[in-house]
């Protein structure tokens, strides 16, 4: 493996996040199963990276490790100059709170809360004052074109609108790293285009985007594509060079 996954500069410009020789091993009976095997890669700050690969290849596991939802079994993952394995659960939560935004395929919106309530959630756990929260919620929903729907619950929104609420929630804390797991997987083509357009906007604003996708058209919007198979990165390529045959 060559290179390092480096997402630097999203805090102060001088900070670096590194992923080096990372493995994630699950024990199935007596057998160790490598969900990720010796991953060493780097991505520059503000980069738009797509991760592709067949089902079960380790794409989502890599995304979860990058999102600090999973700790690597082996190897080193440094975020903001800090080794993830040395942080306790509470410190990891604070890191997710301030640095990372998640966009899920299945939305994960809380059904009893309105769009505004769902967007507000990360700020509640961060202890941000209600007046500031209100202001940021308004801005985030405005950015995804859902100002008029702020008081609607998820079941009163179309799937495309739900995913826009998810994007608003992912960006409301102004994280520099946005991790998206199949963000258009549950959407019709028109809604998918809208979501990809919003992701493009986030990229243009300087957010670092890492997106897991099966869709080659989605991957084409990224700068770079990593192809994973059996827990290994088997291909690194510019999205321009990506063809169905190359996968």
């Amino acid at each position, binding site marked *: 493996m060559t290179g390092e996954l480096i997402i630097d500069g999203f805090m102060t410009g001088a900070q670096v996040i590194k992923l080096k020789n990372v493995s994630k091993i699950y024990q199935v009976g007596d057998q160790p199963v490598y969900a990720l095997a010796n991953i060493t890669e780097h991505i520059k700050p503000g980069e738009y990276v797509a991760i592709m690969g067949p089902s079960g290849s380790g794409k989502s596991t890599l995304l*979860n490790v990058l*999102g600090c*939802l*999973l700790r690597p079994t082996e190897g080193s993952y440094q975020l903001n100059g800090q080794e993830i394995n040395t942080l306790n*659960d*509470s410190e990891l*939560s*604070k890191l*997710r*709170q*301030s640095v990372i935004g*998640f966009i*899920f395929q299945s939305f*994960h919106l*809380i059904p*009893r*809360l309105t769009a505004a309530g769902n967007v507000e*959630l*990360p700020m*509640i*756990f*961060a*202890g941000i004052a209600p007046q500031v929260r209100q202001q940021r919620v308004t801005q985030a929903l405005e950015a995804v074109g859902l100002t008029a729907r702020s008081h609607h619950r998820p079941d009163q929104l179309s799937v495309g609108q739900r995913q826009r609420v998810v994007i608003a*929630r992912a960006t409301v*804390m102004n994280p520099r790293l946005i991790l998206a797991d199949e963000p258009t997987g549950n959407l019709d083509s028109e809604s998918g285009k809208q979501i990809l357009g919003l992701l493009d906007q986030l990229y243009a604003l300087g957010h670092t985007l890492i997106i897991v996708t099966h869709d080659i058209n989605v991957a084409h919007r990224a700068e770079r594509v990593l192809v994973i198979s059996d827990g290994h990165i088997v291909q690194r390529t510019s999205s321009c060079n990506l063809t169905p045959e190359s996968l």
Partner: protein
Amino acid sequence: MRVSDLMRLAMGTITTRPTRTALSLLGIAIGVITVILLTSIGEGTRRYVLSQFTQFGTNLLTITRGKTQTVGIPGVLGGTTHKLTIQDAQAIRQLDGIIRVVPVSVGNARVEAEGKGRSVSVFGITADMPEHWKFTVRSGRFLPPGDPFRRQSVAVLGPKLKTELFGNASPLGSFVRIAGYRFRIIGVMAPKGNLLGFDIDDAIYVPVASAMTIFNMDELMEIQVAFGFGHQLETIIQRIRERLMERHRGEEDFTIVTQAAMLETMDNIMQVITVAVAVIAGISMIVGAIGIMTVMWMVVRERTAEIGLLKATGATSGQIYQLFLCESVILATIGGGVGLAVGLSIVQILPTLIPGIPVHPHIHYVLAALCVSTLAGICSGFIPARYAASIDPVRALHTQ
């Protein structure tokens, strides 16, 4: 996370499913209602009993035959119990500090007049009885003062007995037969009501010597004593003890019961009963707490994906723990509040529904019920909340 946000999030969850919320807090509510109701009846009964005794005053003593606290082996040491007599009562009356003595002989007998008959309590007493027991005469007069050994054939009717035998007519000057003995009615008492369930109004009062003749008894049931307020209780007791032992050949074969001791004993018994009842009722709260725990387990299971989301968006395990524990505590507190409101309402209307039932809510028990209900919420939410906090976010996010 701010407390106001914690409360808002927890309340939002609780109000989303009102039926489930209502059912889960029902157990706690019923528990609190039970505790309030039973302790109110217990406290009401305690107050009723104490009021029944204190109405006669606190400077009273009762002397009964026999010793309630003894040492040794009866018979082996040759102890003899002497009878309490009218002479004993007269001897006590002569002691310094004693202001009144009422020798008492009581039995049941059939009282007949105007072709009607009724079995009632017959009190053999003296002229001092109305003052001693705070009774008043409604018409006529009470038994005449004088020699207590004199068997006068005069009687005073309780108001209920008078009504039963004579209706609205005045019985004064009429005759009644008590167990065959003929007595002239000289007075009717004013209504007094019940004393610990005993209807004092359904009785007849005759001179103590006459009562002893009717019942063919040569001893008293008890001697009632009143002493002056300026005297030490212990001194009075000692004087009475010495005088009676002197009369009973050195044997302390009697028991002196003070009003204070009796009240204390009654109070202790009633308090123990009330606490025991409260504890038994409190067990129902455990059932309520288990209900909340069951619901909280279901809630955590249902919201596993949500827990994963909250963790992904930066909620710490501690915040997740607080959130679920808060929901549990709110459920229990609402249950406690509902139970409190309903319980106190029932206590208010109970005397209307069941006239005469003594109920009095005691603030300590009410507060204890509320505290226990909140504690039940904490205990019942503790394990589910800990489980929720420990859920792996990745697995949780993959839960449907």
